[in-house]
């Protein structure tokens, strides 16, 4: 960056000096003007140096902006990956929770004296917050009992009691 500025300034100043040193027709009136004075040369060089410095500065800003854009893209990409991983972990945790709930309900049903000997299938679906009961029972009383036990052990879940009442 330093070298670029230095060369730019040198080049720019040289062009100005050469231009002013000659007898150029600066005001386009067809007549050559007298050579520029030292002050005029100095001012012109200073102006040119300033322009060159500004140009170099703009180039520097452009590079900085580009670098910033790249950094943002990388950051967004990393953030997206992180969210994806987090969601996957959450899904795995939810699957674990539903399996635990299914086991808990099944154990409570098996242990209850009123449902001894009944084969009742329990299925928990986290995406619909539903617990399904399937199988056969001897009476409406047993169906009610199984449904009540499921409801007790699955707070916030809807119970889909599909137990069939009939002779065993």
């Amino acid at each position, binding site marked *: 960056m330093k070298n670029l500025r230095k060369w730019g300034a040198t080049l720019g100043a040289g062009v100005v000096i050469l231009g002013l040193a000659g007898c150029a027709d600066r005001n386009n009136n067809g007549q050559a003007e007298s050579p520029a004075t030292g002050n005029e040369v100095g001012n012109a060089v200073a102006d040119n140096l300033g322009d060159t410095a500004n140009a170099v500065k703009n180039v520097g800003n452009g590079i900085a902006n580009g670098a910033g854009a790249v950094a943002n893209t990388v950051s967004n990409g990393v953030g997206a990956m992180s969210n994806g991983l987090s969601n996957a972990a959450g899904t795995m945790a939810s699957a674990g929770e539903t399996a635990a709930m299914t086991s808990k309900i099944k154990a*409570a049903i098996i*242990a*209850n*004296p*009123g*449902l*001894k*000997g009944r084969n009742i299938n329990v299925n928990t679906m986290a995406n619909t917050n539903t617990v399904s009961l399937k199988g056969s029972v*001897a*009476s409406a*009383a*047993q169906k*009610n*009992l199984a449904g*009540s*036990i499921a409801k*007790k052990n699955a707070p916030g879940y809807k119970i889909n009691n599909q137990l069939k009442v009939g002779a065993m």
Partner: protein
Amino acid sequence: MPYMIGGEIAEVGAEPRLQDGILWVPLRKLGQALGGNADWIAPNQVAVLYLNDQIITLTIGDKTADVDGERRELQGAPFVEDGETWVPVRLFETLGYTLEADPQNGIVDLTAPV
């Protein structure tokens, strides 16, 4: 009028009975008077009481009650008589009720849990 619930006289439909030093009450009738519901599962000889969000399962002849999956010991084993399941009145203490009983005069006063 042998029953009081929350300080108010309650009509239950069957009087408590004193037997073998234990005061027995009708499970379904008293459970309903307390705002609950009862079921009978004949193949398993089991009576179920649904009361105050609790599920109480009692097996005829078994001194252990199942209260929301927890085993509770009873004073005596439930029995069936006159189409009614009879349980020791102290079962309701297990369920959180405050019990004041006068076994000699067959008076039962139950106050619901807070």
